[in-house]
């Protein structure tokens, strides 16, 4: 794999501290290997404030791993990054405080929702506010109810996650992440575990979140979402970004043959 990086993007070990400030996510030459297999090969990516950046590509391309490096659920082996103004370098052990700061700035929504099954929907949203933001019970409940209203689930506040649909669980998970007032939201294939109808209600909520000005990095197979809501489209293949740009343009006239193949396979 050649180490060519898109113009305007970083390459190598260059220090990125001195660069522009209106980027919420700046990844420079992020590398990650699992048991000798190189999953990410010096991936560099910048996401502007308020931008919705979609990452597409075949499975095994390293999309999810890249996303998980952003909030350090995976520790990158190489490279460095600035996330919401916080500088982080691979290969260093990060203090508990640094991780806490990072994760307060970065919200995440998982493919498998990961709501806490032994708590009601509202308690799922209240607990992190109480413990992370140190809100009062009263404040946390009020905010929780507001957010449930926002994702259209005000009537499910006292239900347990198992009693609501997958689409509803995912909307709760989005509300739970929003409750901590993140500066960026990561979505890891948020609709892949849902049938199309339920996926639509989740996408509608994501659209609303995007409209509110949230910076979003979204790994997805929903081409419609990437095209209409996304501001920027990144195509990954084999641990590297092979193409990126304005979604409409990349989708209708891809520069890379591999992108063309992938798109025609998904659009079939």
């Amino acid at each position, binding site marked *: 794999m050649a180490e060519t990086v898109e113009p305007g993007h970083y390459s190598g070990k260059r220090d990125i501290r001195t660069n522009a400030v209106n980027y919420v996510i700046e990844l420079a030459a992020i590398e990650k290997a699992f048991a000798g297999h190189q999953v990410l090969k010096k991936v560099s990516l910048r996401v502007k404030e308020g931008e919705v950046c979609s990452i597409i590509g075949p499975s095994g391309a390293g999309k999810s791993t890249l996303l998980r490096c952003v909030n350090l659920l995976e520790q990158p082996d190489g490279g460095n990054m600035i996330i919401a103004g916080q500088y982080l370098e691979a290969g260093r052990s990060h203090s508990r405080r640094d991780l806490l700061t990072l994760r307060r700035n970065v919200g995440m929504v998982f493919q498998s929702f990961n709501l806490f099954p032994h708590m009601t929907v509202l308690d799922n949203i209240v607990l*992190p506010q109480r413990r992370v933001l140190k809100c009062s019970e009263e404040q946390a409940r009020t905010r929780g109810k507001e957010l449930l209203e926002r994702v259209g689930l005000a009537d499910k506040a006292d239900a347990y996650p198992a009693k609501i649909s997958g689409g509803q669980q995912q909307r709760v998970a989005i509300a739970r992440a929003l409750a901590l007032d993140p500066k960026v939201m990561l979505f890891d294939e948020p609709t892949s575990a849902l049938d199309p109808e339920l996926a639509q209600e989740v996408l509608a909520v994501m659209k609303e979140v995007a409209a509110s000005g949230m910076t979003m990095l979204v790994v997805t197979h929903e081409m419609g979402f990437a095209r209409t809501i996304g501001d920027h489209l990144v195509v990954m293949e084999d641990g590297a970004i092979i193409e990126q740009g304005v979604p409409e343009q990349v989708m209708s006239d891809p520069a890379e043959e591999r992108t063309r193949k992938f798109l025609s396979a998904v659009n079939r």
Partner: protein
Amino acid sequence: MQGFWAILMAVPYTLLVTAGAFLIGFILAIPLTFLRRSTMAPVKALAMFIIDLFRGIPPIVWLFLIYFGLPVLKIRFNPIEAGIIGLGVVSAGYLAEIFRGGLLAVHRGQFEACKALGLSGWTSFTRVISPQALRAMLPGLATYFIGLIKDSSIASVIGVTEMVFTATTYARNSPEGIYVFFVAAAVYIGLSVPFGLMARGMESRLQAAGAR
């Protein structure tokens, strides 16, 4: 009928040894479980060694070692203490494995969600992980506890005046004394069954509150 009362009088000792051993086992099993889950190979190996040591030696041998062996080192326990400690050590080995199984039953995504939300290790463990692990562990814990009620009879060999000790003494001293063991059997069942029912009740309550 006298045998019946004698056995009943011994029930508190059976329960004391059982509960004491379970408590000690529970407390010791917690650090063992964490060491066993360590990502550092030597720590993990040490925990596995301790667990195998605790479980691998028969309870009766532990009791002899503690009650008759430790006095050599000028450490003396009365029979009840020795019984509780010996069975407690064995319990720690088994319970550590039950705890480990319970934690393995908690979906990996739950740990990740805790991290992604920025919850502290303590909050994650006490509020999110352990309630779910406990639910998965409950059948195993109940089975082990019921087993321990019966295994506490082993403490009779070092002179703890629990049910079997009492029954044996009674049987030796009365002509048709062997029948007292039927009484003992009935009382053991009378103790085990309610605990089993209690555990099942707890399980279904937890099930109702948030089944997956």
